[in-house]
Structure formats: C-alpha cells, structure tokens
C-alpha cells in the first residue's frame, strides 16, 4: 500500500530533519545522517502510527538477529508493511 511507504518516509524525514525529496527506497540507513537517538524516536513514531511492535534492538541495528532487515529505507518500509499485514490478519482471525 502506498500509504505505508509515504508515512514511513514522512516520519524519517521529520524526525531526522532530512530533505524528504532525497529519501527513496534504495537509500542506506547507515549512510543517512541519522543520530542514534533519532533512530529510536523514528521507531517509536512508526510503532505509534501503525500500532505495531518493531523488533529493533540498537545493539543489532541491521536487524540480522531479529530476522528482519533495516539496511535500506525500502527494507524498513517492507518490514513495517509486513508487521501491519500481520496485525490486520491477527485482528480478523
């Protein structure tokens, strides 16, 4: 759904004070100039927006151990999309 991508990019741009126009799916999270505290606040904002739990651990920022990937913005959008879908499926079950 286009909404998830738009919302995630909006949140990242706002929280990290980045140029919204420069954000795209291929952008690598590690290369964007995002401070560690901003990352944690971005995760919080995403969780609040979609009412999901993102398995992000600051000690493993790439997400490897949690079985998700946070390498690129696209990865983050896809992870959030999956969590939103799981949430919807759980609610209708």
């Amino acid at each position: 759904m286009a909404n998830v991508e738009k919302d995630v990019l909006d949140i990242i741009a706002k929280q990290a004070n980045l140029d919204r126009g420069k954000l795209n799916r291929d952008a690598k999270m590690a290369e964007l100039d995002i401070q560690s505290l901003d990352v944690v606040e971005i995760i919080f904002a995403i969780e609040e927006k979609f009412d999901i739990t993102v398995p992000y651990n600051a000690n493993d920022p790439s997400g490897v151990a949690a079985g998700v990937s946070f390498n690129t913005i696209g990865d983050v959008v896809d992870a959030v999309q999956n969590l939103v879908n799981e949430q919807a499926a759980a609610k209708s079950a």
Partner: protein
Amino acid sequence: MNRVVVTGLGVFSALGKTTAEFEAALRAGRSCIAPLTVVSTDALIVKVGAEIRDFEPARHFTEAKLALLDRFAQFGMMAAREAIADSGVNFRGGPGHRTAAIIGSGAAGQTTLDENYFKIYAQGQKRLHPFTIPKLMINAPTSHITMEHGITGPSFSVASACSSSNHAIGVAFHMVRSGAVDMAVTGGTEATVTIGTLKGWEALRVMAPDTCRPFSKDRKGMVLGEGAAIMVIERLDSAKARGAKIYAEISGFGSTSDAGDIVLPSAEGAAGAMRACLADAGLNPEEVNYVNAHGTGTTANDVTETKAIHMTFGAHAKKLMVSSTKSMHGHALGGAGAIELAATIVGLRGDFVPPTANFTEADPQCDLDYVPNDARAAKVGAAISNSFAFGGHNAVLAVKRFSS
C-alpha cells in the same frame, strides 16, 4: 591526608543476599539472570532480569517500619545491617556524630511511584497512603540507615544514574581522607523491577532478550538487575587502633563529564575519569592489575570502554584483566557501582578475579583479556572499578590490596 580503608561490607543483591553468598557465586562464575518473576511479563517485551528472589521483608522489618520502606530502602538497609555488624562499630552515642552516610541511587522508590500512579490514574482512587512521599523519596535509604544505626554526621543521597554508587563512595572517601568525618557508611541501592520502569527501558532499545554478554561478539544489550551494597570506611589509623578487620584500601576517585550525548558514552570522557582516578590514587597505570568494567553488554559501551582502557593504559592494557560482573548480577543502575566495588574488594581479599560470564566469542573490536567464564586465581595488587552513566557522568574508584 588520611589513608582510608574498608572495614565492613554488606551485599544484598540478586547474586547473593550476603557477602558470603555473593562471593561464592562470583567464584563459580554463576549468572543469576533469569526469567522475571517479581512482576507479570505479559505486557513486557523483555522478560529477563537479575531480580532478588525469596526475600520476605516482613521477616526483617516490623509492620510499622515496612509501611515506610520501598523495596530500594529495604535492600539498602539489609546491606547496611550486614556491613555495620561486620565492622563491629557501634555508632549510636559513639563515633556516629563523626560519621557520614552517603548512599547512591538513580531512580528512587519506583515500586511506590508505580503502584500509586496506578491507583490514581487507572483505579481512580481518591486518596493515597500518607507515607507515599517518604517512601519514594530518593534519600529514603540513607535516612533509614542513619536512623537505624544512630549516625548523626552529614548524610545525603547521590544521583548520577549508573554512576550514583561510585560518586557516593567517592565523595565519602574524600570526606574521610580529608578529615571532614572519621568514618562513613556508603554504597548504593536500586530496585527498579517494575512494569513501568521496564517498559521505559524497553523503549530505549538496548535491552537484551536473552542474557548479558559483555564484550562478546553476539551480545544483545543490557539486562536490568537490582540490589544494594554498603561498606563502612574509616581512617586507617583508627581502624588499626581498634583492631578492625581491613578488607582493602580505597586509594583514589576520579570523575569527569562527557558533555556530549545524553545516552552514548565517550571514550575521551571515560579515559579522563580513569586517569583522574589513577592520579588521585598516586598509581601508575602499570600498577593496576584488574579493571571491573562498566561492561553493560551494549554495543556502544563495550567498544567505547575498551577504547578508553587502551587510551588510559597504553601498552599495559594488554596485561590487564578486565571483567564485567554485570554478566552475573545484571545492571543495578544506581546500585551498580557499589555491588561492583564489593565484587572487586571480595576478589582482592580472596585472591581471585571474578569472570565475565556468558562469554561466547570475542568481538574483534574488544581485544582485551576479559577473564571469560571462569574466575581466575590471582593476587591483584591494585584495581579500578568503572561506572560510565547515561548523561555522560563517569566515576572511577581505585582500591589497593591492604598491607600495613
């Protein structure tokens, strides 16, 4: 300046409710990190911690007293009782007026806060118990210790998050060294295993879901602990005059501020505190054998602390034994420094170095001797104990093997 020695020690922690139990666990390299039972973990993502179990406060405090005691005050009092009995000092009417009580604590009476907020906001209760404020105030453990033991010299609590204990002990040490007081009852206590606090910690995204593995490649963060350690410190000459048992000598205290990030540590700040401590102690880096690391098990701390140790000790860093006992007793926040200094002192006196438990594989960026998994027999001559807190407050204490 007076020489200052430790003449009484009390530990009340998840790893042992007496100094003897604590020492046995350290020697065995046993970690007490386990699934939480003190609170319900249904709403929690992080379900492990190092909690104090099998403690029935009613067996140790009268009903009237208990009405005034949050968990963190109970822990502090239990440790103080052991330490003061151990020292053989009768403060009341004796040296009490020349004794300071300075206790570190980062978070105050969390259980009391948590329970009472719930009553007002969730249950809509109209009134709270009159002792709510005296229970939750951060100075409560200090107050009760002075009351129970008749200490009438200067007393206050010290707060600097994870460095609270080291700062408290450092201040007390300086006061005894300068002659401002003759003795001090000092240390730290913390009890933050509440649902509210745990949710707060989860949100920082630094908590390990499994266990605490400081310096290991696959470490996943910190694990909360709780407990207290209290020690009696006094001038060497008066300790000798009364034939006191002497555990170790406190020889230095160093403290700096990162003035940087509110949560991320700085190698420069940490190294500065270690250097300041060594200078205060009159110790050359080469004289230090053991470092009880802050070692929380987070990616940030363990790498930064390793770097800071290299900066402070140079070539000697590779000869140091460095261990994080948080691997065994968890991170007791405001009580951490005291519990860790107790571990250091117990090791000094017992000729062993406590290990870094749960160690799997070395992180390439952490290249020191972390005494993995097994306690090591060693006669440590001098050691330092590090605390590097949120907010950039660094506090380091140095202890020496006592020799008359």
